[in-house]
Each structure stands twice: as structure tokens, then as C-alpha cells.
């Protein structure tokens, strides 16, 4: 697990879950899973390790649990700034990003990546909120959309500071039109990281298909690019990582959505365990349940060892 840099990894909670702030011990091959429990639209708080049942590859594991609210959060915002978002949409994105960043605590960190056909780091880890807002204010909506490349870059650049949990907020209003990487490469990457991805797209996006001339260049013949709506890709990315996908009307205020993503993430639990009885390499499916009460569990589907 550690060798694969799954982040899932290399840290173990050594304190009781209810005694913030938690401490992490580096060097133990452990797996950490971010879990959201909801009852209707409401996040369920106050759960303990004994309230959860976690199976790794079908084998029950002994877990520790801590509330995400007690763990430093690293938020990477990746925004589509292609020509389709120029004008009011770009302003709404800036406002929404500010709403999300304003919810961060001093121990949290944020970074900002924008993408058209060009990927750009507007503010790196450690940048102040003001620097981030200023950087976004300078962005302009222009160019094509390298959505796959941007998603891969965001997952690669997630904060690797020990003891933090990584949240990637990915916004795009359209399909990929200029990436080198196929969607499959991003999905595989998502399986190998512990970042939780929340995706936001437009519900009334109607182009349906990329217009690019080279969209069927098929540089990956064994797994040809299948043009599909971005919403499908977004949904898969969110489900694999245990996040959520939002589709909002194009004219909607995005502040509430972006803020909710941070709030939702904070409402999670971090379940940590040292895998027992599952030594095999490859994909490890994870199943998480809440015992003895109602609740919908959202968690990543598994990890690659």
C-alpha cells in the first residue's frame, strides 16, 4: 500500500476518536477511508468506530474512527476556465470558490488549478485565501477544455502532507475537447489515490459531444475513447473516490453547492485500519455499513495495493 503511494496510507490514528486533535503515526501500512453517513439530506454526526462495519475484500476489519472535523483538510479546486465559462459564469465560479475557501480553518490548506486547453496552477499549497482569490480574479475564460488532463493533474497534485485528508473539487461545464489522457487514465488514477472527488457540472449542458476534429484520434486503441457526456465521467469519478457529483443549472448560483461540498466533507468520518487477512495485490473492494441504525454510507469503492 505504501509503495503505491496510496495515501490511503502511512498514517494511523493512535488516539481515541473523541479526543481532538488526532495524532498520526507515520510508517504503518494502514488504510484510511473517508466516509459520509447521511439520513435523508442530513449528515449523521456522533458515530463511533463501533457503529461501523468495514470489510476489505469481504473480510471484516478492526477499525478506528475519527470525525473529519478534527482532521486538517486540503482542498484542491480545479476549475474549467475555457471559453464557455467567460463572463458571468466565471464570476460565479470565483464567488463560489471564495465561499468554499472561506469555510476552511487555519490548519487547512487550499490550492487552485484552472484549465482550458492549458493547465495552470493559480495558487499552490500554502497560498493565503486572498492570494487564491486574487489569482482567480485574473483568470479569463478562453480556449478549449482539457478536462481529463486537468483531473489527472489535480489527483496527482493532491496535498501529500501527512495527516491531512484530500478533497478535490472539480468543475466543468462541458466535455473534454483537448486532452492527451483518456478518461480511463483518470479513473485508474482515482483508484490509486485517497483523495475524495466532488464534481460539479451543468445540468443543462446540451452539446453532448465534443466538436474537436481529433476526438477520435484513438491514441489508446485497446481502450478507445468512448465519447460520453461529462456527467457520466463525473459520476464515475465521484463514486470511485466516495465523493458526490452535482449537476446544477447553468444560471444557478454555485456558492451554495461549493460551500456544501466543504461542509459535507467536514461531516465525514475517517475510518482507519491495518488490513488483516487480505494480503493480495491488486484491487481491494471496500464495503462500509452502519450498524443498528438508518443511514446511507458514501465511501470510496476500494483501493489498489
Amino acid at each position, binding site marked *: 500500500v505504501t509503495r503505491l503511494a496510496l495515501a490511503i496510507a502511512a498514517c494511523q490514528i493512535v488516539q481515541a476518536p473523541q479526543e481532538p486533535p488526532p495524532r498520526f503515526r507515520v510508517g504503518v501500512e494502514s488504510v484510511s477511508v473517508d466516509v459520509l453517513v447521511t439520513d435523508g439530506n442530513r449528515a449523521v454526526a456522533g458515530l463511533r468506530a463501533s457503529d461501523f462495519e468495514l470489510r476489505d475484500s469481504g473480510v471484516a476489519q478492526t477499525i478506528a474512527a475519527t470525525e473529519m472535523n478534527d482532521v486538517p483538510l486540503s482542498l484542491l479546486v480545479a476549475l474549467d476556465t475555457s471559453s464557455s465559462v467567460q463572463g458571468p459564469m466565471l464570476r460565479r465560479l470565483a464567488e463560489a470558490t471564495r465561499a468554499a475557501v472561506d469555510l476552511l480553518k487555519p490548519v487547512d490548506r487550499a490550492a487552485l488549478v484552472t484549465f482550458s486547453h492549458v493547465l495552470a496552477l493559480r495558487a499552490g499549497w500554502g497560498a493565503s485565501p486572498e492570494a487564491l482569490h486574487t489569482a482567480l480574479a485574473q483568470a479569463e475564460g478562453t480556449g478549449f477544455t482539457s478536462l481529463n488532463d486537468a483531473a489527472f*493533474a489535480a489527483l496527482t*497534485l493532491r496535498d*501529500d502532507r501527512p495527516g491531512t485528508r484530500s478533497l478535490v473539487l472539480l468543475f466543468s461545464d462541458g466535455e473534454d475537447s*483537448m486532452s492527451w489522457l483518456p478518461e480511463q487514465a483518470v479513473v485508474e488514477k482515482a483508484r490509486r489515490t485517497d483523495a475524495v472527488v466532488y464534481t460539479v457540472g451543468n445540468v443543462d449542458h446540451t452539446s453532448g459531444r465534443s466538436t474537436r476534429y481529433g476526438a477520435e484520434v484513438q491514441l489508446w486503441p485497446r481502450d478507445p475513447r468512448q465519447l460520453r457526456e461529462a456527467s457520466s465521467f463525473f459520476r464515475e469519478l465521484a463514486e470511485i473516490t466516495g465523493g458526490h457529483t452535482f449537476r446544477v443549472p447553468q444560471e444557478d448560483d454555485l456558492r451554495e453547492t461549493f460551500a456544501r461540498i466543504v461542509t459535507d466533507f467536514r461531516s465525514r468520518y475517517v475510518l482507519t485500519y491495518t488490513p488483516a487477512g487480505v494480503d493480495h495485490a491488486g484491487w481491494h473492494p471496500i464495503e462500509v455499513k452502519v450498524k443498528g441504525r438508518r443511514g446511507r454510507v458514501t465511501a470510496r469503492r476500494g483501493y489498489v495495493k
Partner: protein
Amino acid sequence: MVALAFAVHAVAHAQPLASSEYAAIVSAYRDADPRALTRISPHPASALEPLVRSAVEEAWDVRDLRAAAMLHTESGVSRLRTGRIDEGVAQVNLAAHLIDATIDRSGRHVPYAARWYAAVSEIVRVHSPAWGTALDQRRGDRLASRTGLEALARGRKLEVLAKTGARRISDAPTVHVNPVAAFEEAVHLDPDLHEAWLHLGRLRMNEPDAAGGAMHALGRAAASPERRIRYLSAMFLGSIHEREGRFSDAEHAYRRAADTYPWAQSARLALAHLLSRTTREAEAREVIAQQIQQPPGEVSDPLWTYYAAPDELLDATLRELRIEVMR
């Protein structure tokens, strides 16, 4: 270099340029000196025309002719975009004369000339439709006699049509047949037509059990004097190696592409992805981090214009053309 585009300032009453001064300005442009455009901008096309003709008659080095052509192209495009149509067209006309001279000097420069005509005629058409069409006609006259190029152009056109058809009938396995035949004809007629080898190699990548054919074609393309072609052939070769599990060869190809075209995005994405899937996560992160910290204006990628339809990304094409003539 982007700053060059914004460096045009008209200055009245400029003294006539001497031939040596003109040569120095072109040389400065090749060195990416932003003052080159500023120095040329006060001089009207009518005053520069004798200098351009002299450059052609004196048989300047072809690379200098291309640099001069791009200098006048940038000067012309900036004028077109600020409404000075006549002077802009006149500057582009000077550039066309210089581009024609590169074709006359060496057939190796035909692909560059073709790309220049395609990009610039679209830009001019927006501002001066009749002259844009005239430039297209001129391109036809200059390039039509080269039968290999005709086949190449036919292949590209067939590819576009086939892709359009493929979207309607979802019949991907058959759509490349005709373009492949056209590109095969092109390289048969002109074995040094590297761009045709590039397209042929890429299309053969999609044929079952045809990796060998694709690698042969892309290997031929890799000998191109054009950086753009060498970059793309390295990327496509890397892709073949990667999917065949030859990760070391793939890494070598992607790194070669990255060396060929500084700050081209796709080479570093491909390299980072390869490193990541071979569990070299820290290196992948470093590659991505370096790439996306580049100022967006500095990033140029031949893949973008390869992907784009002929009338898209004109500015990106111009930037590529400019970069190609810089030292």
C-alpha cells in the same frame, strides 16, 4: 515571446531602413528580442518591400527568410486586428512573398509554408474576406504541383469526412481506409513527406495487429526537420510502446518529445501518467508541478493544432510557426 504581439507601436516619420538594419531586425526577431517588432512597425510595407525583395534575391538563408516572414506576419496580424486593414494586408503580402521564396529554395519547407498559408488565410479572411480568398488561391497555385502534397491534403480531407461519417454510423473500423490509402499514396509519391508518414502512422495505430506498420511510419516521420512532426511522432511512438508494455521505451519517447518542444503540455502529461502507473508517484508529481507552474502564455503544444479542425486554434498555430523560426 507572447509579448511580441503586443509590442507594436506606430511611430511617425521613420527614417528609411538600410538593408543591414533590416537584416539586424530579423536577426533580433529570431533571437526573440521583443524590440524587433517595435523597430519594424514604424516602416510602412511600401518602404519595406524593396528590402524584402532584396532578401529573396540575395538568397538569404531559408531560416532567415522564414523568420522575416513571421516578423511581417505578426506585424500584419496586429494591424488587421486593430482595424488597419490595408497596411495589415500589405504586411502579410510581404510575408507571403518570403514564404514563397522558402518553397522555391527547398521542398523541405513546403509543409511549413502550407501551415502558414492555412493559418494566415483564415485570419485574414476574418478581416478582409476577398484577400483571404486570394491568399488561399495563392496557396493552391504554389502547392498544387506537388502531387505528394495533393495526396496528403486529400488524406486529411478524407479523414475529416470519415470522422464525420463515423459519428453518424458508429462504424469506426472502416472509416480510416480511405485516408490511409491517400497517405500511402502521398509517401509513395514523396517518401520525404514526413507529415504524411505521421498521419499514416497514427492511423495505423488503430488497425488490429498493425503496431509494426505504425512504428515504421512514425519512425520515418521522426526524421522530419520540423519540430512539430518530430514531437508528435515521439508522442505516438510512446503511446504504442506504453500500450505494448514497453514502459522504458515509452518513457524515453515521451522525454524525447518533451525535449523537442519545451513546455508542451501533452508530453509531460503522458510522462507523468506513465510514471504514476509504474508507481513512481513522486516523479509524476514533480513533472506535473513543473508543467503547470509555467505561465499559460508560454505553453504551446503541437497536439492542440493536430487535434483541432483546420480553422480552429489559429493563434496557437501562429505561435507554433513563430516558435519554429526562433533560435
